[in-house]
């Protein structure tokens, strides 16, 4: 046997048993009526998929997930690109600023969610109970259905703009400064340089950033769970929160598995669309 396979086998065995097998198992579960603490798991075909896709919870979560994922991806992209462009310039204290901007990315999302829940709180939060009432805004940000979604999006922007920023900055730094200089000598204006040189050259970085951010936003659980648990009502119940509710609150693992598979296909679909559209 070649030495490569000897080195590979331990990892392969582990990955097969903890990743590959569970993946196949997921499809198997989704085709059965699999409810915890209930005897018997009869094969039900696509019933789980039918029940999940036709439920009103699914439609609500589709709406919430769409708003959440779309606005968070777009806003973190715009912010991240802006910050990356600024910090690609010669500025004093550039390294310190970069580190601070990168910081939210490594912070436990649960802590990020709690920090925002704390400052936005209507009774004790510095923003929700002190600064906002001072300017005449009396509503509770996290208890009001129409404001809660916006609040969890702000927290997501806070924690994930860092990743956009770092990917796009890496893309910008790979562009040779000679190109800018040559364009300037030829008399190109700054907007022209941006749209004809910078943008085409960092396109691969942009695509990667958008795909990764989309997948990430689509799957966010921790910050939303800590801030609102999907509430008030179902105002912030994105797909992962719906899945948690079905699977681990109602113990209907079959339906939760079906939802996970639906999410997987949505992820793949949008990723392919993004790659095709932008490339």
């Amino acid at each position, binding site marked *: 046997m070649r030495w*490569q*396979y*000897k080195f*590979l086998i*331990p*990892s*392969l065995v582990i*990955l097969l048993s*903890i990743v590959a*097998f*569970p993946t196949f*198992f*997921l499809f198997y579960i989704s085709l059965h009526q*699999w409810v915890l603490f209930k005897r018997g798991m009869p094969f039900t075909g696509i019933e789980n998929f039918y029940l999940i896709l036709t439920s009103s919870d699914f439609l609500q979560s589709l709406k919430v997930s769409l708003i959440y994922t779309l606005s968070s991806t777009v806003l973190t992209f715009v912010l991240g690109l802006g910050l990356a462009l*600024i910090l690609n*310039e010669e*500025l004093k204290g550039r390294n310190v600023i970069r*580190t*601070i*901007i*990168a*910081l939210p990315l*490594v*912070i*436990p*999302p*649960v*802590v990020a*969610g*709690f*920090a925002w829940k*704390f400052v936005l709180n209507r009774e*004790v939060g*510095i923003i929700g109970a*002190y600064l906002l009432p001072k300017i005449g805004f009396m509503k509770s940000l996290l208890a009001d259905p129409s404001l809660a979604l916006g609040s969890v999006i702000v927290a997501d922007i*806070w924690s994930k703009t860092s990743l956009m920023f*770092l*990917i796009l900055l*890496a*893309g910008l730094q790979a562009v040779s400064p000679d190109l800018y200089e040559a364009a300037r000598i030829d008399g190109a204006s700054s907007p022209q340089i941006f749209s004809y040189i910078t943008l085409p050259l960092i396109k691969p970085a942009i695509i*990667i950033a958008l795909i*990764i951010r989309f*997948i990430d936003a*689509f*799957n966010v*659980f921790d910050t939303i769970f800590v801030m609102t648990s999907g509430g008030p009502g179902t105002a912030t119940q994105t*797909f*992962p929160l719906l*899945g*948690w509710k079905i*699977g*681990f609150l109602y113990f209907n*693992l079959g339906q939760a*598995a079906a*939802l*996970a598979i639906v*999410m*997987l296909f949505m*992820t793949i679909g949008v*990723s392919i669309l993004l790659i095709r559209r932008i490339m």
Partner: protein
Amino acid sequence: MQVKSHKKLKKFTLYLIISIYLVFVLFPLLWLIQSSFKSMYQALKIPPDFIWTPTFEAYKKALGGGMLRAFLNSAVVSLSNVFLVLLLGITAGYALANLKTRASQNIGFWILSVRMAPAFGIIVPLYIILRSFRLVDTILAVMVAHLTINLPLAIWLLKGYFEEIPSELAEAAVVDGATRGQILLYILIPVALPMIVAVAALVFLLSWNEFLFAFILTSEQARTVPVLVASLAGTMRFDWPLMCALSTLALIPAFVLVVYLQRYIVRGLTFGAVK
């Protein structure tokens, strides 16, 4: 003259935008940290005191009692993940870097696709499997669950790095009669050390910060720090200073590792797509 003042205005605007953003980033964190040094009464006070005598009551509460256990659990889970992932990831990464067959390319793609799958799709079957082994609410369960995220990531990153090391280095040693294990241990690991340390730091942090898997797989005995913070944040009787103190303690690895990790984190979190 006009050009110069125009440039100054531009610089001023850029600094202004950056400053606003930095306030946005730092404000919630600093508020969290300063509240952890307050008493319950001070933390609830509106308008807040900006000058007060700091108290360490919240930290005493956080580190005494049953909560210290969560920190121990988190440390054990994270460190054992680092150890296992390095052991397995270095050998597998090295092997994959030297396998130029079709199959290895497919394995690479397969490993990469784990990143695409919703975490939720992994945890449902994993929960059923671990439950059938009666492993729910054990540290082992959380360790295994974190391995599903960390091992593919580490293999992929290390494979990429080993591919960049010139092959002459290893070939010379083969001619001299060294075994593959010796080459890896004495030649390649020292060369790849920066990446290995980065992978270790990244794995530690991902494991330390991870919530969903740990939350579903544990209840009381094996809960990690994020699970503890979330469960306290979900109760109705809020002890704000205590929660702030716990959160602040949970932040320490992030603060320690962010400076070092910055160079590698993009590579890590984009699965090596961006270098």
